[in-house]
């Protein structure tokens, strides 16, 4: 536990020693802010028009502020996460391997699992900080409208779980190579594939559709954004994270045997 904490602290610090954390958090907030502004502005424009002409509301499928602003916002944030998370995770092991520091780290009296969990947790913490900054958007919505609180809270839980799942895969990808770009491309590509799987549901065969809709990362966020915490969704993300961390441990160990 103590070693886990020490590695966690060291990794967290090194995110802030280097410009990575600042750059990623800033870019993340700029893009999400831009999306938030657009979604919100569009909603208010349409709302004004709907006031004049109630037919428009039906035409735009305009329901309420939760459905039209909060849900799309969460959808957008999750896409931006998909783009930025690999940049946070790519260095975790790849850099240690390239610079050789992994040799010292693994000859210190620490277990592999403490190293993996420490690094994973540090990255999740950075991601948590990113998410906390976005709390400003629901606050603004609350000031200018009456959103439901429930879906916002569950939406954040969903985003957090999804981000942690992205990170767990990124950590795994980072152990496979000593090249950070390769690690980033690998984790981005695979996550995108998992993500896109939702799109092919429309033409998948009856046998595949059940499996694919379960595997697709995107499908499991829907419930959270609607205000539903489905234990199946929670278990899906937790399983995904555990599998990736397990693979990370195996990858670290296999490197030892290959020498």
């Amino acid at each position, binding site marked *: 536990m*103590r070693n886990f904490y*020490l590695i966690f602290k060291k990794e967290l610090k090194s995110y802030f020693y*280097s410009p990575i954390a600042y750059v990623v958090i800033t870019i993340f907030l700029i893009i999400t802010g831009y999306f938030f502004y657009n979604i919100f502005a569009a909603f208010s424009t349409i709302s004004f028009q709907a006031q004049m002409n109630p037919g428009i509301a039906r035409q735009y499928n305009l329901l309420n502020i939760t459905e039209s602003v909060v849900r799309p916002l969460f959808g957008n944030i999750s896409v931006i996460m998909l783009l930025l998370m690999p940049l946070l995770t790519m260095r975790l092991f790849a850099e240690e391997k390239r610079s050789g520091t*992994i040799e*010292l780290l693994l*000859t*210190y*009296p620490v277990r592999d699992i403490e190293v993996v969990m420490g690094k994973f947790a540090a990255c999740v913490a950075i991601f948590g900080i990113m998410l906390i900054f976005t709390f400003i958007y629901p606050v603004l919505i609350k000031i200018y409208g009456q959103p439901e609180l429930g879906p916002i809270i569950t939406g954040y839980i969903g985003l957090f779980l999804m981000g942690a799942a992205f990170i767990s895969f990124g950590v795994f990808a980072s152990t496979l190579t000593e090249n950070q770009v390769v690690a980033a491309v690998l984790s981005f590509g695979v996550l995108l594939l998992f993500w896109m799987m939702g799109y092919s549901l429309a033409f998948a065969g009856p046998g595949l559709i059940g499996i694919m809709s379960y595997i697709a990362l995107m499908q499991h966020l829907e419930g959270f954004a609607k205000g539903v915490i489905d234990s199946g969704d929670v278990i899906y993300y937790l399983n995904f994270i555990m599998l990736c961390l397990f693979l990370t441990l195996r990858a670290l160990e296999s490197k030892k045997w290959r*020498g």
Partner: protein
Amino acid sequence: MIEVENLTKTYGSFNALKGITFKVEKGEILGFLGPNGAGKTTTMRILTCFFPATSGSARVCGFDVFENPLDVKKRIGYLPENVPLYKDMEITDYLTFVGRIKGIDTGEIKKKVNKVMDDCGITHMAGKLIGELSKGYRQRVGLAQALISDPEVLILDEPTIGLDPKQIIEIRQLIKNLAGRHTVILSTHILPEVSMTCQRVVIINEGRVIAVDTPQNLTSQIQGAAKILFKIEGSSSDVMEELKRARGIKKVEMKDTNNGVSDYIVEFEKGVDERKGIPALIVKKGWGLLEMRPMVMSLEDIFIKLVTEEKGV
């Protein structure tokens, strides 16, 4: 303290170690000598539990490196060859991190960090980022992280490489001072380093141990008969003739000649010491004796001899 038995390691089809066996006693400094690619680093990595051996066993402080890696890791300090350190950390932060992870308590850590920085002469650099340091200072930080927990066993892979002569002397002195309290394995291909710091030498080549002994014994054992160099002024043909006739001389070899002064390397028969006789002869003949010194075989010569002999077999 360290027992290595029949260690082998294969990388794919390449046999890096072909059965290495040696022992290190407590408090001893062992020099690990070999050309590049001999298997020094591989052996050290197995001893530090970085990766397991293909076969054979290694025990450090009584713990098997494969069965109880954590117990082994707690008792060693390791300095890898190219000194991999976190460039984005400050020296104090880094040493604190390493010290804590090696089990030093919060109450003691500050004292230990200060002490080890003092020992390695990096106190005045404390607040700097490791990435900003010169090679020599990085080497010292590497040594400091190995020493911080006062481990029983130190494994140093080429610790003086890349240092300036003054630093080399300091680091060697530092390592020498560790003898007795710590058991040290030190790999190098710089031979004088071994004769200066180590009590025992293991010479390995192509994954095999080819000699284990003290530097002095190795020198006398392989050297065989004594060789002495004479610088003599006089007609070289006369000198050669007289020297060859003298008693107990096995071989005379003439080297550079310059203005009637020549170097002669005289090899005596085993057990014969003619350091008195030859000068007397020279004086009698009226030549000038300008220089006389014993030719001790350096470790370099021994090393090359051993490594090439091995090849010949």
